[in-house]
């Protein structure tokens, strides 16, 4: 049987399996791996090599994207620990976060109605700031305290922020087109 290159995304890039990662190193290692496996390196090779190259390059892209973004990195790390973050099923959120959600939604609707792109940009900045706070929490929960259930809750919050952010970005894009 083929020995696969790696068991998980961290190992593929030779990085320790933890939430805090050296992003420069990740970028560097990703490029090194792609330099070896990318289909451009095998354009004139056998069919078997071209197929393998496409599979490995696809895997490297998937691994890189997962590790690059904090939310997906945390989700993946929890998965490795056998924990499902239940983002689709578990919608229970602490009261203060629910309040924040509602505020953001309201602010977004108001700004959209007023076609105020600047206000939407400010909202984005605020969400990013809150997101960064949660990312710091994750570092503690995952790397120091190994409090995986708690981390799972933080991932759900971050994932929610990501979704609203995407909505706001799409709204801005629509307003600009109009």
């Amino acid at each position: 049987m083929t020995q696969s290159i790696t068991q998980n995304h961290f190992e593929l890039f030779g990085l320790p399996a933890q939430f805090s990662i050296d992003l420069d190193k990740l970028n560097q290692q990703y490029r090194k791996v792609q330099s070896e496996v990318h289909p451009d390196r095998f354009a004139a090779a056998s069919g078997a090599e071209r197929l393998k190259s496409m599979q490995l390059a696809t895997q490297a892209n998937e691994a890189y994207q997962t590790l690059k973004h904090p939310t997906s990195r945390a989700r993946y790390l929890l998965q490795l620990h056998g924990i499902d973050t239940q983002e689709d099923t578990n919608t229970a959120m602490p009261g203060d976060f629910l309040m924040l959600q509602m505020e953001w939604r309201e602010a977004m609707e108001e700004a959209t109605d007023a076609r105020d792109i600047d206000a939407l940009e400010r909202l984005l900045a605020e969400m990013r700031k809150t997101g960064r706070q949660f990312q710091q929490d994750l570092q503690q929960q995952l790397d120091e305290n190994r409090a995986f259930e708690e981390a799972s809750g933080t991932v759900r919050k971050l994932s929610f922020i990501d979704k609203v952010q995407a909505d706001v970005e799409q709204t801005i894009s629509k307003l600009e087109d109009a």
Partner: protein
Amino acid sequence: MALLQIAEPGMSAAPHQHKLAVGIDLGTTNSLVATVRSGMSTVLHDEEGHALLPSVVHYLPDGSIDVGYAAQAQQSQDPHNTIVSVKRFMGRGLKDVGDTAQLPYKFVDTPGMLQIQTRVGKKSPVEVSAEILKLLKQRAEKALGGELTGVVITVPAYFDDAQRQATKDAARLAGLTVLRLLNEPTAAAVAYGLDNASEGVYVIYDLGGGTFDVSILRLSKGVFEVLATNGDSALGGDDFDRRIFCWILEQAKLPPINPEDTRSLLTKSREAKEWLTDHAEARITSLLKSGDLVDLTLTSAKLKELTQHLIAKTLNPTRKALRDAGLGVEDVKGIVMVGGATRMPQVRHAVAEFFGQDPLTNLDPDKVVALGAAIQANVLAGNRSENDLLLLDVIPLSLGLETMGGLTERVIPRNSTLPIARAQDFTTFKDGQTAMSIHVVQGERELVSDCRSLARFELRGIPPMAAGAARIRVTFQVDADGLLSVSAREQTSGVESHITVKPSYGLSEDEIADMLQSSFNAAESDKQARALQEARVDAERLLEAIAFALKQDGALLSEVEKKEIETSMEQLRNLMNTGNSHEIHDAVEALNHATEEFAARRMDASVRKALAGQKLNTLEL
């Protein structure tokens, strides 16, 4: 037919021999071919010294075909049979092409992709493009003195799957082996970046004859990483001409005019636009066939006013691409201008104002794409030994599936780095349901009807189960050319249902075969001879590649494993002289299968070596 010469495995000189590879910029207005000679990327000229080949194809009454300047000269006399800007119709249906009334062609609304009625019959845009490619192929083979190993053809970054597939089909029809479809802005970045040894974030602003692309790239140490791309595949210099044309009609208060006059006024419009690049005003005079005289003066200020909204239309995609890349204008180190239309001063001013810095214009905007494509073709053909150039490109438009209520379920988001694969699970809606219909679309809109329909297929043979019990996994794979393939299987029963994706656009295998045949105007036996020839070339390439791999990494195999591969190679080699195309094809497949494990080990070893590289070097010191 002459027999092919085949060297002994390991004895082949091929890996060191310089392969003839070219880059082709198949443009809306002009096309070019370039190659790397003595380490320099250079555009190949025709016998009269022209670098540009006008992308114009003229079908003559005697059945012959003119391409380029000769065809261009006929466009006003014979507009119905002289096809210009065919790129606008590639992979497009009649409803996708907006202002058909202004175009002098007789369009035929065929499913998937439109066709054009000419005096020699209906022509698909793919066939018309193939004529341009054939001429460039001839030009290249004459200049380089041999048959081409492979080509890189550039496409607008914002081309969707249908447009890319159409381009690849055209190349096949022209008898070219496509090493890669390369995005035009990325090609320009390669030409620019390698010339200037640049590092940092660059924006490529590419306004061609019929398409607009903007790409944001991070350049660092030979890696060209596309962060985001956006654009408008129906916006270009042609639209500026058309604005001038409409202005002429308005000013001269002309009655509806015939196709000949339309074509000639469009040409006058283009000439005026080009003149205004270096002059303050342009005089437009023309005596129409109708007897009307046009005599007008267009100032550059007026042109700016007429085309303001077109320039604004390029800045929106630019803004979006920056946002997708998570960057602001302050992060951009330079803006590279590509495409003839970026010569217009009002375009340069608008870009300079948007980014707060003057764009880079030191490379010829007409040639930079072909030059970059040639560099990549050279790398892909295997002519460069040092692996110092890597292009990481993205998919320009999201891919998705139709779900209940005509809504799009996004499976692969735009700007994902290629290659990429994503799977999505579906289940049945009714008890005992054994078939499922899957509709693949491309685009950013929520409603399926606003997106581009790529393929519809039926997944059959699902074992009857209760509603919701089946697990059907649909996998999208987008390769490095940006082309999609879809497969589906039922998970719970382990039954794999093979599906053929029948594109709702483009050409089927049979259609391509028919076109190849009719273009040779030949008998069935010739078709077979051609298939045999193709199969032999394939086989020879494969044997060569494996011989090289064995020589390099044979140590990764046991003696038994090596023997197996060698036996498989021997079988193929024997069949090459005696077998028919199907037998050779099967033996090629068998050899590919026999070397899967070897391929995997080779790649494993190279990745391990690359990641451990620094440590090893230190040890050796």
